[in-house]
């Protein structure tokens, strides 16, 4: 029992350490504040620029998602249990942010990808046509520490991000994937009056072990059962056929970031530019040897620029959020002697919301947002090229009600529509293969569909569940339905259709 208590205390560490006596529920309740919290924890500059000195939450979530409107590489059904704690506190010259997340998920009818952590850009992964149940376990820990140097204006900070992920499934072929990564991001910050400016670096390392096993010998190393065949994908259409097998990968991360914040009593402006480079090497472990053989590398450059600006007036507060993200990557296939796979994507996102202040118990928030997304993938050997762009405009309306006993209610609704802007997919008929018909065609149908979506949230916060502690229940839902089906190719083995519903329930404690 002592061990269980110790475990619970350890898991709740961020919340326990950072707990404050004043309630923090409103900061998590109001969308604009919630966005601000999520923004400031990205950098020491952001954390320092905020006047939030103490804040903590513990959250237990249950999520389930199911539906046939998905790609062939997504699960038909999934369930997730998630325990998350996070908090901010200030201790003398230190200001800290910490987070811990334990996530356990079960996925059903997932086929054509055996990735440990789903990554659309990644060209090297195992896949099989047999749909099966996956079990995933993920621990994430991280935080930020800032320290005020003598002289008042300078601060040093460092972020830390640790993750361990384990994925496996119980039908042949049986993948077993363990991923571990650690990122460190030191930062130097100059703060004077209302301005904060910081520059930081990022280093990191990731290691992943992938192995494929079979229990039924009939399925291993043969082609009699096509859905049990394991493919090693090596691009966007280029692959080889394997059986029981192993690969290992190691990634080095390097990055830099610039952060700026302006905060006064009326206006807050926060911006961040971050560059991150991931250099991934993929290896075949050699038999009876401590040596591995490099068979491919993958380089991914990620550029992200974001702004979060808020302005407070006597009768309303409005907020603007914008993000531009650009990713570009390519592989280097040792066997082919060059670059076989190229990937790029960009996201441009703009959101605006306004929250009028009211003396009544009911408040509202209205907003709109737009997302422009483009993705390109090219496999030279397999002669597959895909390029699509969609635009997703949406509106958002939220009602906040405060009861006399200080209980709070939030009801939010965000309808949106995803509109294909341009798209093309080319593959010569002679090079249509297993990847094309089972993965690329369905993905293209999915990404070229016009989709209507509605996100909804109902959240209730009260002190009645736990005496003198603010806690709340929340229900979040996201519903997607194709309004028109995208391009469907003859030979496609999977057609995204019907709808997809993502529903989560959470119990949150605020300190």
């Amino acid at each position: 029992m002592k061990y269980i208590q110790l475990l619970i205390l350890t898991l709740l560490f961020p919340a326990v350490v950072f707990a404050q006596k004043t309630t923090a529920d409103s900061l998590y309740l109001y969308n604009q504040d919630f966005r601000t919290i999520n923004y400031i924890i990205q950098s020491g500059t952001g954390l320092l620029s905020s006047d939030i000195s103490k804040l903590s939450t513990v959250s237990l979530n249950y999520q389930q998602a199911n539906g046939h409107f998905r790609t062939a590489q997504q699960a038909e059904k999934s369930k997730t249990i998630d325990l998350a704690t996070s908090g901010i506190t200030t201790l003398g010259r230190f200001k800290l942010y910490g987070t811990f997340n334990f996530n356990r998920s079960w996925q059903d009818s997932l086929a054509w990808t055996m990735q440990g952590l789903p990554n659309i850009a990644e060209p090297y992964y195992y896949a099989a046509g047999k749909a099966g149940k996956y079990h995933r376990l993920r621990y994430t820990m991280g935080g930020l520490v800032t320290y005020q140097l003598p002289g008042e204006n300078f601060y040093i900070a460092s972020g830390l991000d640790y993750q361990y992920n384990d994925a496996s499934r119980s039908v042949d072929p049986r993948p077993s994937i363990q991923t571990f990564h650690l990122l460190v991001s030191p930062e130097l910050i100059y703060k004077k009056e209302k301005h904060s400016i910081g520059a930081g670096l990022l280093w990191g390392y990731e290691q992943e072990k992938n192995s494929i096993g079979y229990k039924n010998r009939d399925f291993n190393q043969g082609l009699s059962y096509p859905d049990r065949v394991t493919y090693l994908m090596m691009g966007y259409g280029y692959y080889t056929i394997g059986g029981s097998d192993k690969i290992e990968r190691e990634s080095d991360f390097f990055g830099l970031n610039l952060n700026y914040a302006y905060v006064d009593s009326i206006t807050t402006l926060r911006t961040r530019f971050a560059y991150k480079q991931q250099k991934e090497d993929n290896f075949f472990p050699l038999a009876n040897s401590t040596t591995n053989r490099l068979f491919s590398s993958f380089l991914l450059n990620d550029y992200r620029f974001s702004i979060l600006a808020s302005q407070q007036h006597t009768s309303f507060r409005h907020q603007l959020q914008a993000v531009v993200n650009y990713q570009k990557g390519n592989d280097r296939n040792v066997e082919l002697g060059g670059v076989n796979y190229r990937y790029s994507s960009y996201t441009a996102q703009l959101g605006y919301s306004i929250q009028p202040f009211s003396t009544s118990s009911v408040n509202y928030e209205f907003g709109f947002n737009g997302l422009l997304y483009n993705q390109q993938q090219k496999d030279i050997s397999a002669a597959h090229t895909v390029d699509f762009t969609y635009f997703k405009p949406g509106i958002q309306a939220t009602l906040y009600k405060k009861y006399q006993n200080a209980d709070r209610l939030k009801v939010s609704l965000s309808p949106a529509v995803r509109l294909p802007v341009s798209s093309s997919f080319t593959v010569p008929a002679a090079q249509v293969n297993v990847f094309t018909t089972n993965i690329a065609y369905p993905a293209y149908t999915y990404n070229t569909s016009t989709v209507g979506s509605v996100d909804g949230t109902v959240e209730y916060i009260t002190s009645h569940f736990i005496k003198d502690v603010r806690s709340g229940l929340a229900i979040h839902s996201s519903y997607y339905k194709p309004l028109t089906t995208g391009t469907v190719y003859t030979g496609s083995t999977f057609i995204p259709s019907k709808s997809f519903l993502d529903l989560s329930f959470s119990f949150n404690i605020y300190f």
Partner: protein
Amino acid sequence: MKYLSKFMIVATLILGLASCKKDNNDDVQPVSLSIKLAFDAENAGFGFTYEKTTVKITNLTTNQTYNATAAADGTVTFASIAPGNYDLAATLAITAADFNAKTGANAQEDVTYNGTLTRQSIIANGDINLVLKTGRVGDFVIKQIYYAGSSAANGAIFRDQFFEIYNNSNATLYADSLYFAQVIGNNTAATRVDLTRGIFQTSGQYDWGKSVNMTSANPNSAFIYAKTVFMIPGTGKQYPVEPGKSIIIAATAQNHQSPFVGADGKAITVKDPSLTVDLSKADFEVYLGDQTNINPLASDVNNPNVPNVTVIDNNTNRDLILDNLGRDGLVLFKTTADPKTWPKFATPDDTEITIDTKQYIQVPIQYIIDGVSLQQTVVASRIPKRLPDVLDASETYIPAGSYSSQSVVRKTNRTVGGRVVLKDTNNSGSDFGYLPKADPSKAATSFIN
């Protein structure tokens, strides 16, 4: 609004930067491969022309093949192929008349020259030399090998394995004292072999020259190393095999489609008899139940109606167990010597010889009548080739893989007076096809074109 305009400026800059076109000079490009053929030293002076030499190259990732025919000067060019690792195989058939005229020999059948290179990295335009050699064309040939076995869940797994030896000549031959052996080799997928260990050839196969106590010249090309050796018994002319006839060697000569009682007294059954075969009428069986150096398999039941082969060296194997995955090789040989007196060597990864070290009989290739190299079906698992080119230029395998009930079977070359002459060019990759279900009947159904 001023924030929005600043954001748009930065966004435009980033997207503009992103859209900058760059020359993708590193992109994979099709390459040109030029192959220069040459005969080996023994055959270089006969004046054979290269013109009808066919060259096949096989991509070891995609399994895609390219074919071309040589020019008169022995050059073959593949102008635009995907870069990658390739197996190269060249074959030249010379008519018996032409061969005899130029060599003064008295060949009865066409003579085939083969040249192979395995796992060649071709990532840039380049030239490769390929040497054509000829091997012995056997009178006894291996016609069929059923190594896959049948379903582990519903069939007989490996109990029902067999192979078939065929008289491909026009004279009656005697199977008496005919030896057959399984060839030991490195079973690791070629892409997973650590060549830096110093015990492998560049192909990934064992470098037998590195074996403890090895003194033989040309240990990799002049010998094969047998993990098992068996001999068909007989008095000399006890087991005649007529032209166009064959004999079946069964691992266990039982009707595997019906239940039978194992050596432990328990019934051995299959759920789906249609997956397996009746070997109760096999000509010979490998029975190891009386061997003292092993714990015999319960399924290795002696059929008194089927003669047992003589065990020369079972090397602790518990039956004739062909590798279900295809990591095996089978040879036939005849010799007046006693193979038990031939030297034995451990694989080169064994650096110390103890009483428990497995050692393998070194079989000189001049005694070998026929050899067939098997291979994994799945491309990523392909192993290094284990037979020298003069015995078998390239491997064969079944398309469906292990436990599929399929067998590899030699193709029919022609029919002479009702006698089927099987294709034998010492190149199993082209000599063999497959049967969807192994067929030990010796009937017409067991032949393919």
